[in-house]
């Protein structure tokens, strides 16, 4: 049975598509895309084969004692790693990355606690207990120039706190919004210096320096400068065929976008961080403005640890 709605639907579909004509060269364009895809697959296959060959060669050389007397020429893997690391360091250089908003989402294993203070964010008096009100399962951090904000969520997804820093000249302001107590505080803040070069073994702590040119880009650059990284292949990360780089510290792995060489993911032991690098549009800058919800009471800031 035909109804008026069905007739109208047919008529509307006919009218909407009436002037559509297939664009010229669509098959050729599809052909180009297929060729590009095949070329990418060839490169990946060749890279994987090269890695296998290099690994075999290294294993053979070690077995025959070839490394015992004369230093070996850099392997293909080492050259590839050096090339990739150089590009990542360039992509994360302050001149490049300071023009982008860094968005980082971190996921923590059970038992991690973070507490905001005027000096920054750290474990509450060194405790690591799931019972603390500062138990955190994930954080979302935005950084741009001399400003960053961080939202912390409990393992169950509840908003634990927001934290924001804004620097200007020699000083700045630190603000924290605490959701469980429905309070907030603000205090003077100062940017810290760049991370120490000696911090190659990350251990159980991650110290992100604040201020322009610092944060995650500085920490990753500092890690790369420690050396002993190795490109170990490609892996899909959120739809990106990312280059996987294994670090000297067990569990430290970095994935970078092959087009931009900017990090897309990093793991440090059980902690993982996902990165996005965004243009500083007004809408992208909005999360960098910390807002105190209505009805929250201002309290004095805690003492610096």
């Amino acid at each position, binding site marked *: 049975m035909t*109804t008026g*709605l*069905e007739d*109208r*639907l*047919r008529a*509307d*579909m006919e*009218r*909407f*598509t009436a002037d*559509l*004509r*297939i*664009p010229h060269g*669509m*098959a*050729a*364009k*599809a*052909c180009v*895309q*297929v*060729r590009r*895809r*095949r070329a990418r697959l060839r490169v990946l296959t060749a890279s994987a084969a090269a890695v296998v060959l290099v690994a075999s060669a290294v294993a053979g050389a070690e077995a025959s004692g070839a490394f015992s007397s004369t230093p070996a020429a850099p392997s293909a893997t080492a050259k590839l790693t050096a090339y990739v690391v150089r590009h990542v360091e360039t992509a994360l250089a302050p001149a490049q990355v300071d023009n982008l908003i860094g*968005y980082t989402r971190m996921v923590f294993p059970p038992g991690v606690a973070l507490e905001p203070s005027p000096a920054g964010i750290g474990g509450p008096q060194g405790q690591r207990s799931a019972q603390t009100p500062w138990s955190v399962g994930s954080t979302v951090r935005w950084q741009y120039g001399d400003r960053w904000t961080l939202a912390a969520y409990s393992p169950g997804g509840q908003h634990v706190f927001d934290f924001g820093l804004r620097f200007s000249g020699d000083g700045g302001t630190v603000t924290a919004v605490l959701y469980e107590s429905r309070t907030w505080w603000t205090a003077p803040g100062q940017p810290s210096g760049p991370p120490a070069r000696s911090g190659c073994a990350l251990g159980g702590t991650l110290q992100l320096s604040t201020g322009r040119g610092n944060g995650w880009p500085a920490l990753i650059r500092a890690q790369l400068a420690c050396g002993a990284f190795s490109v170990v292949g490609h892996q899909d990360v959120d739809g990106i065929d990312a280059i996987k780089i294994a670090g000297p510290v067990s569990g430290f792995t970095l994935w970078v976008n092959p087009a931009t060489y900017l990090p897309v993911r990093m793991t440090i032991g059980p902690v993982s961080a996902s990165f*996005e690098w*965004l243009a500083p*549009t007004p*809408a*992208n800058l*909005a999360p960098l403005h910390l807002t105190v919800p209505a009805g929250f009471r201002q309290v004095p800031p805690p003492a610096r640890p």
Partner: protein
Amino acid sequence: MEMEPSRPVAEIEQFLADRGNQLLRTAALLAGSKEGGEDLLQAALERLLRRWQTIEGDPEGYLRRTLYHLAADNWRRQGAWRRQLRLLRPGLDLAAPDPFADLELRDSLVRLLRQLPPRQRAAVVARYWEELSEAEAASVLDCSVGTVKSATARGLQRLRELSGGGHGGRDATARESAKEQTR
């Protein structure tokens, strides 16, 4: 094994010259916009090229099925895409040109069709645009005849509500879309 794509390009060009406009019209209805339709058809063509040597018989059937499957895939991913787009290009929803901006299409059922959940929309396009039988639509959509029947009936009912300003409205559509995405 994938085939060398250069040889069949001429054959596909000829095939598109014969059937391309009709397929593009279907793709535009499935995608909800003319530009989206071109992208959808382009993606389906790439799959066709990669499988050209293994396709037996008429390539149109393969291309049509691919169009429907890709459209459904895209819709399923829409939630994730929107979240990413919000981060990458916030405000996109506001800034994006309305493909139905033409005055004559503002109140068109095609615009309302875009608000249907994926399965309902595909079923409605298959049945009322392509004029496929329920069995043919089930084959293209890779589902049972019963699913085609229920999806078509619900899609029409929803269009009726939306066009008549009847019960449900935007929230109900959103709820239904969310349900569809989680299936």
